[in-house]
């Protein structure tokens, strides 16, 4: 595309069926103890 550069190929819609295993890290167990940051956790199944 000439006018648009898309940064990612994965769509959230596609995680609906496969997701929800719950094995990923709890956000407050990482480096945030005062502000909730879920979006930067890594999916355990994509490792």
């Amino acid at each position, binding site marked *: *595309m*000439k*006018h*648009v*550069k*898309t*940064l*990612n*190929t*994965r*769509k*959230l*819609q596609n*995680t*609906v069926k*496969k*997701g*929800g295993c*719950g*094995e*990923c*890290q*709890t*956000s*407050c*167990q*990482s*480096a*945030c*103890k*005062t*502000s*909730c*940051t*879920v*979006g*930067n*956790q*890594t*999916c*355990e199944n*994509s*490792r």
Partner: protein
Amino acid sequence: MIHQFKNNGYHIVLDVDSGSVHVVDAMTYEIIGLLDAGYAQDAVIERLSAQYKESEIREALAEIAALEEDGTLFSREEYEAHLADVQTRGVVVKALCLHIAHDCNLRCGYCFAQEGEYNGEKALMPYEVGKAALDFLIASSGNRRNLEVDFFGGEPTLNFQVVKDLVAYGREREKVCDKKFRFTLTTNGVFLNDEIMEFANREMANVVLSIDGRKDVHDRMRPFPDGSGSYERIVPKFLQFAESRQQKNYYVRGTFTRYNLDFSKDVLHLADLGFRQISVEPVVAQETDAYAIRKEDLPRLFEEYDALAAEMARRGKRGDSFTFFHFMIDLEGGPCVAKRLSGCGSGTEYLAVTPWGDFYPCHQFVGNEKFLMGNVTEGITNTRLQESFKGCNVYAKEACRNCFAKYYCSGGCAANAYNFHGDIRGVYEIGCALQKKRVECAIMLKAAEAFEADERKEEMR
């Protein structure tokens, strides 16, 4: 729903429901804005033809149509029904924050733990209580394999033999029970020594090292009981610790307050000291505290985040990058929708345990009796409270429904909401504003990385 923003020279369009991120030229940015406002294609052309060639506008419109067709722009997904699926599954507990010591060797000015004591008496967790907590975790974790245990305080190194004994017990039990413990340690560094570091390097999946940044900033808020600063004592140890972990699986973590609104300098100070994994967060305080962030501080803080992100992009370009936890975003392998909808897990899959074995929804609620959930011997006794936390998600908060950042912060921190509105389903507006800015900066850095990679490819040709 889309969200458009400009940052560091990039025109960015986030398609909220698909999570797709598009970097576009200035003309396409305007076109998308008009389409989102309800303009038809002909009206867009008419509106912009004085500024841009019609052929170019039509070309961009065709590209936009292709993205729409692909489900990555103007996508509409209803995830609420899916949330019901997730919520009807039984609750399992998979993470505990063990308050190993309600005592501390520092007197940090902003400590939500009231100098480690959480509004109560000084106390150390006995081994038996910790052991019962691990047994509870194993028994309550259903088919989850990865279990997380954070050794927290107060200051956990004040009771380090118990930490070591609990790790040994966990390692013994995980084999028998087919579980995998991920232990982490949060420490202020005062008592760190070679023995503790060696132990942590063997057993801890992550360590969080508390330091606020520049010496004067750090010493002002993190003094010893006699009032003297702790910076000089901890910095050499933290540097040694970070190196001994090969600069991985650790964070130096700081808190910024109204006293250092120029906190980007503290983040860069930590980077310049040689740390590569950095997390610096806004303080959570009562409105009446002098160091609390105020609404009028927000424009200044936005500038700080922007300046930090721009500097990180520059450093990245010259191969001197570091990780800033709050700008991390994984566009390809991030959490699934289920995780994004259900939030941090406090009060459901994540619990804090006091030295005497009581459960609270998370470390921030410890000491508030209204939030007592049960204990290590009886388990969860206040199931109503558990249900209330289970129902706390982006769809339960009106302010989140139309927020572009809802799938990144997942409704925000329940403790903040409670502190400011007396309701875990409220929202903490200052936190929201800062969170949104951080998401924008994180996405901008991804754009910068992508363009940098393209440039390198071009140079290779």
